[in-house]
């Protein structure tokens, strides 16, 4: 008797699971043409970070502001619809996009091969970041100055090994960023290595006034906006691709960097030059 009850309960549980699974897998299939849907709805829902200075963070009045918010607004303006920001987190943004809760992510997302299997990454990328150094003013002039010296970092950072082998630095990795920065402040290491965008945000605060970012990034890690995978080559994806191209070609990104007091790395000028359409042939005809 008891055995039969167990079987019944297990079957019921299995049925629920299958049902839920089917509902989830069915969701993307019945998504109609997203471009049409957005225009009919009259609003575009864009996923942005909630507290990521200077990319997307709350203004004193509670409204979101920052570089990514400005980019998102330019998308809404071009479409002539209302902009509805949706605060996403790093862990849930791709799920939000898959489930149709948002139409587009402009939320500090690295473009990786793994993620390209899940969401429609928009080319060209709109931003970049990479590992660089935070050090007391005048101590470091190039990456080579690290040779044989202690460098603070975080455990698990992918570039720790590269820095150890290439520049012969003694990497002291802590469990968190706070500990690493505290160790730098108390002079336990000559510099702290982390993402340049985070270091820039630190440098904007008075407690790091005596510090600087003395070297360029170790490598570039481009950030892409993303649409649902099945929309990538449809009207919506192609439209956003056009926006992303214009951000680069028109120099809007470099302008935004200036507006929000960020020093744009060499990557921006290079991309701008590459994507800016050369119109000199017009003048030659004159």
């Amino acid at each position, binding site marked *: 008797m008891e055995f039969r009850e167990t079987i019944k309960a297990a079957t019921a549980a299995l049925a629920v699971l299958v049902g839920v699974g089917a509902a989830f897998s069915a969701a993307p299939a019945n998504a109609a043409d997203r471009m049409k849907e957005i225009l009919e709805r009259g609003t575009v829902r864009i996923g942005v970070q909630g507290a990521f200075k200077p990319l997307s963070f709350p203004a004193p009045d509670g409204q979101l502001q920052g570089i990514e918010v400005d980019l998102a607004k330019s998308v809404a303006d071009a479409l002539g619809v209302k902009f509805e920001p949706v605060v996403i987190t790093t862990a849930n943004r791709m799920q939000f996009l898959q489930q149709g809760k948002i139409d587009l992510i402009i939320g500090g997302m690295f473009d990786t091969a793994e993620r390209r299997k899940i969401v429609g990454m928009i080319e060209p990328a709109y931003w970049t970041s990479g590992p660089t150094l935070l050090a007391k003013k005048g*101590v*470091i002039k190039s990456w080579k100055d690290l040779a044989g*010296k*202690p460098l603070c970092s975080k455990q698990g950072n992918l570039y720790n090994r590269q820095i150890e082998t290439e520049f012969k630095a003694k990497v002291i990795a802590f*469990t968190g960023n706070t500990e690493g920065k*505290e160790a730098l402040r*108390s*002079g*336990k290491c000559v510099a702290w290595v982390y993402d340049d965008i985070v270091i820039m945000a630190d440098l904007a605060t008075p407690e790091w006034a005596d510090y600087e970012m003395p070297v360029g990034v170790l490598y570039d890690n481009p950030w892409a906006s993303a649409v649902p995978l099945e929309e990538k080559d449809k009207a919506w994806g192609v439209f956003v691709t056009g926006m992303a191209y214009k951000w680069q070609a028109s120099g809007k990104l470099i302008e935004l960097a200036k507006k929000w007091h960020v020093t744009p790395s060499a990557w921006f000028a290079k991309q701008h030059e590459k994507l800016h359409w050369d119109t000199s042939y017009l003048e030659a005809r004159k």
Partner: protein
Amino acid sequence: MLDLMAPFFRNLYERTGTNFNVFYDRFEFDRFLGGIGTSLELMFWSILLSLVIGVLGAWTQSARSRFLRIGVNAYIQAFRNTPPMIQLLFFYFGLGAFTPQIDMGGYYQPIISSFTWAIIAIGIFGGAFNVEIFRSGLEAVPDSTLEAAESLCMSKWQVYRHVTLPLAFRISLPALTNNLVSLAKTTSLAYVIAVPEMTYVLNQVWSDNANVPEMMLLLFLFYVIVVTLLAAALHFLERRLALPGYGR
């Protein structure tokens, strides 16, 4: 040694995707050996420090001076009742800020390194327990035995040296084994102050190579083997020192 193992483990990786790269990659192998060395050194010195503290502390507890006794009790309460990880962070970041350091141009070489802080913190943590363990041993020596020793005209020091201490040590040995084994495992916490011991090193290896399950297995085996050997050595000592018929 690496040249001997490397072909097997490289082959294993290529065939099955099981990546024990510390056994074929020179850079990772050196890091792995460094981790073993640091871990063993850390265990040795912190256990030694904890034993010294334990003996001295237990002796002080029976001292005449009230201040000494209160001091030892305060020490036991403070270090037995706080987590060892917090103690490590407290010593390294809290007290580390006040210790003298040498200007190396851009950074400072502290007189007390993170490795030394780890020995101090873990040694003091284990010592707090050892004091209590040794005290229980000293108190368990029967009064009648001590009286018998006194009646043989032994001096106070002779009684302590030839009767109390040998018996107390044997009585406290099982509890001591437990504490020292636990202390050896506690050394893995030194990764929070960036001491490159086994946990720290393998954490970095698996972050670089995405071979978490393999390195977890290795880390687990490392502690199993080291701690088993330590416990075996202490049990051997216990058997060697056993007094026939005593305590049975």
